[in-house]
């Protein structure tokens, strides 16, 4: 395959994303309400210094954190035909797409990138929650499929980072089918005896949790993140009861056998390096500290 053709030229405008926390001086912790100085927040990798709540992390920061020295190549994804159903709710789907593309500087809610993790060349497919709630439509599905193909060709581990509200309703059944397509993709990686590690972050729900994200050889979840199939409001309305504290959180999932490792954000890279290097029979690269 032609590697060069698959790499995306870095986009300058990503670096100046309008919604970046760092651009505002203060940010309110969604868990404890404490006002946090954004410089401090950046230093703590977006973990509240008051209550230890792990705020949602911008995707480029996540990739910086996971790849050695923050270095990776983004892989270009096949262009998907927009809005196959000519969908319109209160707004046209094409308008929504346009707005999110402008806001995030990305085509859709997924990035596929390749780089070293603890010295082992790996592929990461990461979902961007800021793009329509990380919803999985054809583009996200295609990203996972492409990532799996590259992992298999390069004989390297596949890591997915989930952060998604579920299926993209605006793409109807084409969206539902991504559950099967992504499952088929990660299944191929597993059949090739390459590690598939699923990282679950806040939130991993709906169609994403009920497909590739729950099929990893190893599941690593970020402390306190929401993981589940049905939304909490739906469950509450169905059973007409208040849900217990901690329900559908990473720790709850671990207790119920669904997650291997729950980590703080600053431990994630080390755990990932350990798992990958052991499964790949490689000595971990000692220079494995994350770029913070």
């Amino acid at each position, binding site marked *: 395959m032609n590697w060069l053709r698959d790499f995306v030229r870095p986009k300058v405008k990503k670096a100046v994303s309008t919604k970046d926390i760092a651009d505002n001086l203060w940010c309110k912790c969604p868990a404890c309400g404490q006002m946090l100085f954004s410089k401090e927040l950046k230093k703590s990798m977006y973990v509240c210094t008051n209550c230890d709540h792990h705020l949602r992390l911008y995707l480029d920061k996540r990739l910086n954190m996971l790849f050695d020295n923050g270095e990776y190549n983004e892989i270009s994804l096949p262009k998907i035909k927009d809005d196959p159903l000519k969908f319109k709710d209160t707004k046209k789907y094409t308008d929504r797409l346009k707005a999110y593309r402008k806001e995030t500087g990305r085509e859709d809610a997924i990035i596929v990138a390749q780089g070293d993790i603890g010295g082992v060349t790996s592929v990461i497919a990461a979902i961007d929650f800021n793009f329509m709630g990380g919803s999985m439509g054809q583009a996200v599905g295609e990203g996972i499929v492409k990532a799996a193909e590259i992992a298999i060709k390069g004989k390297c581990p596949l890591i997915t980072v989930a952060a998604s509200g579920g299926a993209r309703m605006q793409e109807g059944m084409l969206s539902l089918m991504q559950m099967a397509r992504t499952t088929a993709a990660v299944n191929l990686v597993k059949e090739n*005896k390459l590690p598939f590690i699923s990282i679950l972050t806040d939130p991993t729900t709906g169609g994403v949790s009920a497909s590739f994200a729950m099929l990893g050889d190893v599941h690593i979840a970020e402390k306190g993140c929401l993981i589940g199939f049905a939304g909490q409001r739906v469950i509450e309305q169905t059973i007409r009861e208040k849900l217990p504290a901690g329900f559908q959180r990473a720790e709850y999932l*671990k*207790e*119920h*056998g669904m997650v291997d*490792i729950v980590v703080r954000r600053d431990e994630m890279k080390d755990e990932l390096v350990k798992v990958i290097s052991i499964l790949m029979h490689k000595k971990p690269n000692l220079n494995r500290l994350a770029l913070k």
Partner: protein
Amino acid sequence: MDKKDTMVLDFEKNIVEIEAKIGALKLLAEDEAVNIDDELSRLQKKLEKQLISSYANLSPWQKAQIARHPDRPQCLDYVNALIEDFTPLCGDRRFADDETMIAGIGRFKGVSVAVLGQQKGKDLETRVKYNFGMAKPEGYRKAQRIMDLANKFSLPILCFVDTDGAYPGVDAEARGQAEAIAASIEKCLQMKVPVVSTVIGVGGSGGAIAIATANRILMLENSIYSVISPEGCASILWRSADKVKEATEAMKLTAQDLKKLKLIDEIITEPVGGAHRDVAYMVEKVGEAISKNLNELLKFSGEDLKKQRTEKFFTMGRNLDK
């Protein structure tokens, strides 16, 4: 040992008395300028003799007591000392994570491995946490999951067996304890990687063999491995729990008896007085024994390892009196 709340077995009493005297003497020597060297060396010699004679001819019942000693090194003592970068993995992806079943991946002397074993806990709090070493169906299903992972990534599997048995409870039965153990044995047999199981304390019945259907089965000198607990056997066959010593004798559950029956491969010598009297030494010895066996097994192909394992269990019992 200078731990005050250590459990003292009957046949350890003489030893503990001499140890206490030595301790007192040492204390005295610190306070006053008395020369105690002679007395000390006399006592130390006596202690050595006492230890050797006490432990030379232990009865099966006494061995069972050592095997169950609360200070005996447990699964995690071995794992923490022998496995580098140990990464515990959790959950059966079905119902729960059973903390009793220690499972994970790491490196043993530089080789990537998977690890399984039961942890019993050492004080009330940890005993409750580990359910007294009795795994539930979800524990055995976690073990199966890790075995699959090991098989896929060519990781040898090291098991540390230490359980009175699988958990006997209504919830465990409801979730299919029997099926979970059966499937675990079957999974062991399907592995195309070396499986080395070491009975470090108590090998209690189905709960033990679920992770001991191995290419090599090693036992510590004073560990036991049996089809039912001595107490259970006494109450069923003798209809009296008081007959536990007789039952223990009859069951042939010691490492030495099982070696004679060719059901296990190797006995790992314990320090005089039992593994609990020198944990660091014990851990090292176990590491050496596993390493030796693993290196022998690593020469074979996955297919051969699987065949050998099946053959090994087919041969059991047929190879006696030869």
